[in-house]
């Protein structure tokens, strides 16, 4: 394996891309908070899933672009996504176990 974490070929986005990402993150956050103040939306069964999807999108955007995982070595991707999957599965398993969610 010859890829080096400090290699010049280790491409990163430009400053303009970072600014666009910040705008996207801000817009998603505004939409989340706006939805919180609309009673009809809060009462909807789609409210919680929508918030979780928006939160997951923000999470993924930061990890892929600001943490450069999109451009980084696959070992780093494995070191992050492996524990992340275990962590997510642990949360879901515990919520089932304590009957906070059910099928």
């Amino acid at each position, binding site marked *: 394996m010859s890829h*080096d*974490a400090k290699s010049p070929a280790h491409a990163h986005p430009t400053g303009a891309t970072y600014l666009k990402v*910040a705008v996207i993150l801000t817009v998603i956050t505004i939409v989340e908070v706006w939805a919180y103040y609309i009673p009809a939306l809060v009462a909807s069964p789609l409210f919680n899933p929508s918030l979780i999807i928006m939160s997951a999108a923000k*999470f993924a955007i930061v990890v892929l672009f*600001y943490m450069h995982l999109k451009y980084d070595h696959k070992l780093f991707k494995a070191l992050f996504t492996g524990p992340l999957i275990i962590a997510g599965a642990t949360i879901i398993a*515990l919520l089932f176990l304590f009957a906070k969610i059910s099928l």
Partner: protein
Amino acid sequence: MASHAIAGHDDGHAHTHHTTTGLDNRKIAIWAFIGSECMLFASLISTYLIYKGKSLVGPYPHTEYTDASGKVFPAILDIPVTSASTFVLLMSSLAMVLALQAVQLKGTPLPANAGWWTRAQRSSQLWLGMTALLGASFLGFQAYEFTAFVREGLTIKTNLFGSTFFTLTGFHGAHVTVGVLWLMSLLWIDRTRGLGPQDELVVDIAALYWHFVDVVWIVIFTLIYLIQ
């Protein structure tokens, strides 16, 4: 995982570590650490979610509570303040990634017609300082929130919401505090001897930690503050 450095040399600019993976061990270590932190916060978030809605007495996060004496406790979460602190932390991630870029760009020739933005993009001190300042502001918001909660009758001992809320957000705040101290030490190094492209990995590792703290807050903000 093969992680032993088999050679190293000092060329006057940087230490190069040759490893069997071809990757710097310090970067592997920070990603492994971040992976372990995912599981730490998963346990804290699970605990919060399991006990959510099980408090026998108020104050409650999203609904009003009246105790036996008739005292009314309003919903305790202050969404506007927390939204502002969330925005501050998101912008600190932008500043951090620009600090890393500034370190990478140091030494490259500046175009003759460079505007203020092009010049600003090369100032690692500006962006490191900005990131530390925004991080400290986030901690200020958290200190304000915690003291307001205590004044309104919610402590870590009041109910299950208080216990799980203060534990989860307190752990996150402790991580932010470590991040701010780390950034301030980098800023101090930058001011004394200057950070350059040879220090890219050192700044990158701090940046990864800082962005992780940000993504954890993204999850906390939705699960605690917005989902009712």
